[in-house]
């Protein structure tokens, strides 16, 4: 049974996928209704049928003399710590016992997705790397059509685990490099390692133990360095050939990996062409969309859009991680994969509930859904319209991957495996530039969409908006990094390479070549960082002021009639071009609204906040009844939040009490403040 994998290249891709994949993925959470719809009749290949073959521990041993292993297969067994005893003609388990022939056959057999579950990261990696699930047999095939065996699955899973370990070690080494051997190990270093482990980036057990027991930095540096060096050797396994290749200029297919496979067959190609047409039509309605689309050209200037695939990014709908993905961009910018489960959920919720069950049964495979989408162009276009900002974000990543060399050198092992936050900042701001164009074309539609609040945050304060993106990434992917950190990691890699080079002359030569390769990585890293800075500066100097000017103009016009306090707030936002007369008129209109009794207390308090802020600027005098009106509105809001607090517990309750107190202070309502203080005391 041939094993088809690319050895060190696969390791590099795993390493890349471990940290770079999240950077190229925008997992827009699906609405709950769509998740539930997608979970109906998910087909056979969901790993829930009984009868998955268990490990065979006893029986007739496998006879190596009668059936020798091919070199490639033997390497796979050895990677999993099995050993061949040529003399005895036996394949040995890691514990030294002979492997039964039935166990060899079990692991050589194809992975059965009907009966077995696959690791979520590995599943996503397979489908975005050219492997396809045969839905009838529930078997994966590799890009050449060969079956994906259990043995290959175990080998890939091990390589992925090692890649994660390598990342965790690299992170620990970078933390330790700031400390002197006699410095105490800060708690933060242990807490960070624990957090990374929760995210799947676990340290090797020996290093973890050393870190837990270490009193001083020097106690853990040795074990960490040894493990890091061993791990680096593993990723250098391509030997002289790999080192020479990495040290040479990148040439596609020769010293750089061939492009990742895209369409596997004609049905995929037909659907891809239709979806590409929809994407071009939807994004092409806006100037920013047209600009992005225009960037995808080949060397002769002909359009060269990324291929658009629709595949199962997880074994089941709603699975953790990729199960809720909207779309994934490939690290080489060659293709964009829409998640089958997301498209299916949207298709099912778009039809009347009575028809849903029957349709779910029909649309349980990508091929069936593809046919349905080709026959229902209006549903297809509607889906693309629903996820247009996600598609814009992912296409931005495709363009980033195509325009620079950083990803290329990262995949060649010449630059550290990082997911640079700068690229996320750019993709998010590009997505919001697209949203800005949509706002101009259809203010009501854009204001009602979930992106509106994020857009407001960007207009109000770009620095604070970026901090919110960074914080969210740090919380979700603690391995997230920036170019500055990547440069620090590169220094660590160089240091380890020098250390490895001291072992013997052959290793010295190989590591010297490796460091030549690092120079390609350094150049790509520098160039990517400079490019990112230049784009950032151009955005701040030209695009952001324009967006503020135009955006606030649209918002003032939209809210002027129905919510004058919001229009006033927009008129006072940074970059707004409004006159004093306009602002005073909006203020008076908003006060008149608040004088009307009743209405939503929270909405009235928000409006009053805008008016009070405006008065504080002393552009106009408030009416005589303003203070009384303000007290009334704030007291009503404080009582509303106290009522919410009474129905809540714990942190939720504390939050409402905090809000009630803020408004009670705003109203200067001493009785209410005393009541809040009493409640707090009682809660203690």
């Amino acid at each position: 049974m041939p094993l088809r994998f690319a050895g060190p290249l696969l390791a590099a891709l795993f390493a890349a996928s471990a940290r770079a994949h999240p950077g190229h993925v925008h997992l827009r959470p699906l609405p709950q209704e769509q998740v539930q719809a997608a979970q109906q009749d998910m087909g056979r290949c969901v790993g829930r049928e009984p009868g998955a073959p268990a490990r065979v521990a006893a029986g007739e041993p496998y006879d190596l003399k009668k059936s020798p292993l091919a070199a490639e297969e033997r390497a796979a067994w050895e990677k999993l710590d099995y050993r061949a005893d040529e003399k005895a003609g036996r394949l040995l388990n890691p514990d030294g016992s002979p492997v039964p022939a039935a166990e060899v056959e079990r692991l050589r057999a194809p992975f059965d997705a009907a009966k077995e579950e696959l690791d979520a990261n590995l599943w996503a990696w397979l489908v975005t790397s050219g492997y396809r699930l045969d839905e009838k047999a529930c078997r994966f095939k590799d890009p050449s059509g060969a079956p994906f065996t259990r043995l290959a699955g175990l080998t890939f899973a091990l390589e992925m685990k090692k890649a994660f370990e390598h990342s965790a070690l690299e992170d620990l080494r970078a933390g330790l490099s700031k400390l002197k051997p006699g410095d105490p190990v800060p708690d933060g270093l242990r807490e960070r390692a624990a957090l990374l482990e929760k995210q799947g980036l676990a340290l090797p057990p020996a290093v973890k133990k050393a870190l837990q027991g270490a009193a001083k930095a020097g106690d853990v540096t040795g074990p960490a360095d040894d493990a890091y060096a061993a791990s680096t050797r593993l990723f250098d396994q391509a030997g002289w050939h790999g080192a020479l290749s990495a040290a040479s200029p990148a040439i596609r297919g020769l010293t750089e990996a061939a492009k990742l496979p895209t369409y596997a067959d004609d049905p995929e190609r037909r659907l891809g062409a239709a979806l590409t047409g929809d994407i071009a039509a939807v994004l092409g309605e806006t100037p920013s969309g047209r600009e992005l689309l225009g960037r995808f050209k080949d060397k002769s200037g002909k359009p060269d859009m990324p291929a658009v695939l629709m595949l199962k990014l997880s074994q089941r709908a709603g699975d953790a991680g990729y199960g809720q993905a909207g779309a994934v961009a490939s690290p080489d910018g060659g293709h964009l994969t829409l998640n089958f489960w997301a498209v299916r959920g949207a298709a099912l919720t778009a039809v009347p509930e009575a028809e849903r069950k029957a349709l779910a049964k029909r649309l349980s495979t990508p091929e069936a859904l593809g046919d349905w989408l080709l026959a229902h162009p209006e549903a297809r276009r509607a889906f693309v319209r629903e996820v247009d900002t996600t598609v814009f974000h992912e296409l931005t990543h495709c363009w980033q991957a195509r325009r620079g060399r950083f990803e290329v050198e990262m995949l060649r092992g010449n630059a550290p495996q990082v997911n640079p936050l700068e690229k996320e900042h750019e993709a998010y701001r590009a997505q919001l530039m697209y949203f800005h164009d949509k706002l101009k074309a259809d203010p009501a539609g854009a204001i009602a969409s979930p992106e509106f609040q994020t857009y407001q945050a960007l207009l109000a304060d770009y620095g604070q908006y970026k901090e919110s993106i960074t914080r969210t990434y740090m919380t979700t992917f603690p391995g997230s990094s920036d170019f500055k950190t990547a440069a620090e990691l590169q220094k660590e890699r160089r240091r380890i390479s020098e250390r490895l080079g001291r072992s013997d002359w052959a290793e010295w030569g190989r590591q010297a070549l490796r460091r030549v390769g690092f120079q390609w990585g350094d150049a790509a890293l520098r160039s990517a960082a400079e490019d990112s800075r230049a784009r950032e500066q151009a955005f701040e100097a030209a695009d952001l002021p324009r967006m503020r000017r135009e955006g606030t103009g649209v918002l003032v016009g939209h809210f002027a009639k129905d919510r004058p306090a919001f229009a006033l707030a927009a008129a006072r936002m940074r970059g707004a071009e409004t006159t004093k007369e306009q602002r005073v008129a909006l203020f008076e209109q908003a006060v008149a609204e608040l004088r009307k009794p009743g209405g939503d207390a929270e909405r009235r308090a928000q409006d009053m906040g805008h008016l009070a802020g405006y008065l504080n600027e002393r552009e106009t005098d408030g009416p005589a009844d303003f203070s009384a009106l303000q007290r009334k509105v704030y007291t009503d809001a404080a009582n509303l939040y106290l009522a919410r607090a009474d129905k809540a517990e714990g942190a939720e309750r504390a939050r409402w009490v905090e809000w009630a107190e803020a408004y009670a202070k705003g109203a200067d309502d001493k009785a209410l403040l005393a009541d809040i203080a009493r409640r707090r005391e009682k809660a203690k």
Partner: protein
Amino acid sequence: MRALLAAALLLAACAKDPGPGKAGYEPRDAAFALAAPADWRVTEDQGEGHRVSFFGPPGSYAESIGVYRYEATTPEAYRAARAGGSAGPLTARPDGRFEFSARSLTPEMHGRPPEEVTVRHVLVPAGSVLWALVYTRPSSRPAGIAFDELAASFKPKG
């Protein structure tokens, strides 16, 4: 960003010991000084008024504290510009500073539903400059003491 504050940056310029678990921080232009948790991660000068941010604690990185500098603005105008969503009223504090809190949702990303965060802004007028100390935490998580300690130590210069 990976740099731990304790070792990385320009710190030891502070004359006073910042205390256990804390590190003094002073930017290159010495425009301010503060004491921050020593093992939080740091980003500097990210654009538009941003000077420095601290992310922590290392077991979750759920909180952030940002320091921002704005020219020619008032606390009222600052609040008005950021009052999208739900913002509480601006209150003047006895120490001459101002503050307000707001709630907002984090951007949608990576399979993670938007999370509601509480953002507390402490505003420090200093001549023609307004400094903003911005503390963000998930609304479901109680406020830690790091922000109050950092804000108390914050001293604008010049």
